[in-house]
């Protein structure tokens, strides 16, 4: 039995509305407890230290086929000089390096946003090989022929709910993501764009309908995480209109719009490219059920990877270095990997950088917006501390804006925004808010019974970037894993899943479809709990669902 006491630290616990208060924390058997009656095996003196729950990254591509394609494709960036971890590049780290870098930054839970149901085994295997962190995935739906066929034949909502629940169970995921609703499928039938209210050629369904049905399914099944939406028209100037239309498509049901920076572009100005962050944040501030993560762009080489093969194929000419891969996958979705270099000499890239920051700063409620770079699409996750500094320090931000090689001052209102994020707000947006939206009651919190995932920062370090980059202690499930930047213990996190109930008749229908059209059998499509622990190598933790019904 291990017991641990954190003495005299300054606590930031947004869920319990505790900000910067001195309090002792007791840990027993991986959980936080109010009091310890037995002997304390270790005490950490936290004087002048900031204590926060372990951070949660709810959108980071850390496992799955496309990440692996990028790892193999971009071997020249795996350098020989950095021997702290292994050779892999920061933006496409190996599973081991992913775990090490996340835990050293104080992140204890990460979620892979694009788990293709057919590729779920690989995604989970990769995540199982990632040490320390808890993980989970969102299953990709909305472009699979089975669902689109179901919708086009006018299926009842309950049938769609059953299918969504089946997919969640079969793929061991925690949420549902829809990428370019209907668009990836339309690309397979040679459509090159699909607007929110445009019918796809083959199924005659609009993206609006897909979003509405899926958002309702996720809501009615009681899955805690709302539908995770990657909107139509990724990266197209003027796409903020489709983003707003997609938000409207949910008809007030909770949705989560992901990497919203890539979907907040106007087409004004002499370059036909402008910021529409004001319009977008206006919406975010207004609508209660809406959350989003930003997908901030930072300058440097990276690789963009997305399920959105339609838009990735359209953008392949921008690849740097000049190579790319797009793939159609198993009548379910697709993937596209295009290496890309964001430079501050490019007007578009510089403005993307500013749009992301504007979105952060104009969104009033830190409970509604999450800190992501859509790793690695905008920048590698290792740049989070830098991003936090950009948000917390106006002069730093303005300085960088002035130093950009291309002048975008006339195109952005960044300089006029006076807001600086406080530590409390950062704690909210990286800890409690993601935990709440994912339904993880035991995470992102320091209340009793919560999981003892804790990060301790040194408040003597004046530079915020440095402070967030190097926590003095990181505790995972009650075990001190990082101390002064050194790994002390290896632990393996769990996979977070949801398993809503459903009517099993959908399996009969699916079996018919699989036997006739698919190339594998339905039983081999699903991953059982036993397989997760015995073969794939990660234990699961089930998050509860509360079934709801829209009258």
């Amino acid at each position, binding site marked *: 039995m291990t017991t641990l006491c954190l003495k005299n630290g300054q606590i930031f616990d947004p869920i319990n509305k505790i900000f910067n208060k001195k309090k002792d924390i007791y840990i027993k058997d991986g959980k936080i407890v109010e009091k310890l009656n037995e002997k304390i095996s270790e005490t950490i003196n936290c004087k002048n230290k900031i204590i926060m729950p372990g951070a949660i990254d709810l959108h980071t591509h850390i*496992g799955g*086929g496309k*990440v*692996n*394609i990028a*790892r*193999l*494709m971009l*071997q020249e960036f*795996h350098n*020989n000089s950095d*021997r702290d971890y*292994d*050779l*892999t*590049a920061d933006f*496409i*780290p*190996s*599973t*081991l390096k992913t775990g090490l870098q996340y835990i050293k930054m104080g992140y204890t839970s990460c979620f892979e946003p694009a788990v*293709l149901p*057919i*590729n779920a*085994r*690989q995604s989970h*295997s*990769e995540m199982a*090989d990632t040490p320390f962190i808890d993980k989970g995935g969102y299953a990709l739906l909305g472009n699979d*022929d089975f669902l689109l*066929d179901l919708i086009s034949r006018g299926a009842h909502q309950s049938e769609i709910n059953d299918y969504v629940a089946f997919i969640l169970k079969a793929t061991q995921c925690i949420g549902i993501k829809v990428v370019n609703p209907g668009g990836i499928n339309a*690309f*397979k*039938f*040679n459509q090159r764009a699909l607007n929110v209210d445009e019918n796809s050629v*083959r199924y005659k369904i609009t993206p609006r309908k897909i979003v509405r049905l899926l958002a309702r399914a996720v809501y009615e099944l009681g899955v805690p995480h709302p539908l995770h939406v990657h909107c139509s028209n990724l990266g197209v100037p003027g796409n903020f209109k489709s983003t707003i239309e997609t938000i409207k498509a949910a008809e007030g049901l909770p949705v989560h719009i992901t990497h919203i920076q890539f979907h907040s572009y106007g087409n004004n100005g002499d370059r036909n490219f402008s910021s529409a962050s004001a319009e977008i944040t206006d919406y975010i501030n207004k609508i209660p059920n809406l959350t989003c993560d930003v997908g901030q762009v930072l300058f440097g080489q990276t690789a963009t990877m997305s399920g959105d093969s339609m838009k990735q194929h359209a953008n*392949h000419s921008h*690849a740097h270095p*000049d*190579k*790319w*891969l*797009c*793939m*159609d*996958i*198993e*009548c379910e979705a697709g993937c596209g990997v295009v290496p890309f270099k964001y430079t501050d000499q490019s007007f578009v890239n510089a403005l993307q950088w500013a749009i992301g920051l504007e979105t952060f700063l104009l969104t009033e409620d830190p409970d509604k917006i999450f800190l992501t770079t859509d790793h690695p699409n905008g920048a590698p996750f290792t740049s989070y501390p830098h991003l936090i500094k950009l948000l917390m320090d106006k002069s730093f931000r303005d300085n960088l804006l002035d130093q950009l090689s291309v002048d975008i001052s006339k195109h952005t209102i960044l300089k006029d925004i006076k807001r600086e994020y406080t530590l409390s707000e950062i704690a909210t947006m990286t800890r409690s808010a993601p935990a709440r939206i994912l339904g993880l009651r035991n995470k992102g919190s320091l209340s009793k019974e919560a999981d003892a995932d804790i990060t301790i920062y040194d408040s003597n370090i004046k530079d915020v970037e440095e402070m967030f980059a190097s926590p003095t202690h990181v505790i995972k499930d009650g075990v001190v894993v990082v101390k002064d930047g050194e790994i002390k213990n290896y632990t393996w996190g769990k996979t977070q899943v949801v398993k809503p109930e459903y009517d099993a008749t959908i399996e009969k229908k699916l079996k018919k479809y699989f036997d*006739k*059209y*698919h*190339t*594998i*059998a*339905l*039983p*081999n499509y699903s*991953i059982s709990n036993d*397989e997760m622990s015995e*073969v794939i190598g990660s234990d699961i933790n089930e998050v509860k669902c509360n079934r709801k019904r829209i009258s």
Partner: protein
Amino acid sequence: MSKISDSLNLKNIVCPFCSLHCDDLEIDVHDNKLYVKSNVPKSCAFKYEKLNLPKFKDMVTTVKGKPCEPKKAYQYSRQLIKKSKETVLLNSSSDVNVTREVLSAASKVNAIVDHVNSSIFLKNISIYQRRGYMATSLTEIKNKSDVIIVFSNNLFETYPRLMEKFLATKNSFSVNSKKKEIYVIGKKVKNTKDCNIRDKRITYIDFNNRNITKLINSFISKKNESSISNKIFNKLLASIETSKYLSVLWATSEFDSYKECDEIIYNISAYVVSLNKTSRAACLSLSGNDGDVSFSQTLGWMTGFPSRIKFTGNFFEYDRDANNAIQLINSGNSDLVIHLNPISEKKLVLNKKNKNIVIGRPCTKFNIEPDVFISCGIPGIDFKGHIFRTDNVVSLPLTSLRMSHNRSTQEILREILK
């Protein structure tokens, strides 16, 4: 795992033996013996039924050709590893979990890790390492593709069920499967008893696949410069031009002996990419009969490189020349090779110049006697596991079907590296 006396009927079993990993097998287990019930080519069923002989179930360990206690074999292997100055772990067929263990084993003894098929799959990977690539997967081909071109000389021998199960199928979701057009380009196909090669939809074109580049150039210029007759060439070209979703398949392993191999695969993929400006087309390179896809993917996520890794102290290095195991063995650069072939023994070649430890399926045949042989269970027959299909995205679960006295490769590796 079933009890010996049990009689079971198992459905939807994944076959681990070729890279298509068909999962529609129905297998009866009587008295711990396997009988394939579903209607599959005899060569496929034989792979299972061969294993019913008792010698495939008993654990065999030999040292220098003489049977001995497992303990002694482990002991001797440990000695060899301890003495070795340059160890190579050479994989010649395995699933994901074996590969994971191989990596952790290699990190313990600072070994070189390689796969016998590295040179082939490195070529496949190099397509998208150097230029654009449009890929597709088998279900997509089955349901969306109206025109399929396969470049292959011995399609029905290497992939007995490819045509029947994935290409010339009865049902397709989005296209009229009766109107599918399939072209098989390569050496004249011999009639085999095993599979039905007659189908109205299939056109066989007799062609020397060394000249594929010429054929592709003819497609681009629309002038026939190949050895194919004008009539068939025009039909082929018309099919390509009117196709809604063209799929092009080839097996790099067949071209590997050609000097033009790189050129051929680059040209096919570049042509397919160019077709995507106006229409849809995609490629699929068939590979992975010896678990290479599982191997390269697993190494990919654990190290960032597909193969040819050398562990040194706390980290590892990748070098496509210096860590080329086959070359190292042939030139006598290494002194100990640990061969791993739990699934098949096809690619196993031992060399006298170095000591050999073989961890392989029972009844493995050798060209020369290895210093140590330890038989192991077969993933998918004796042990659970998980393996990738040829199209790189689909991974399927392997189940254990029967009782066996063999231990798993992972256990044995852990044991000899204690």
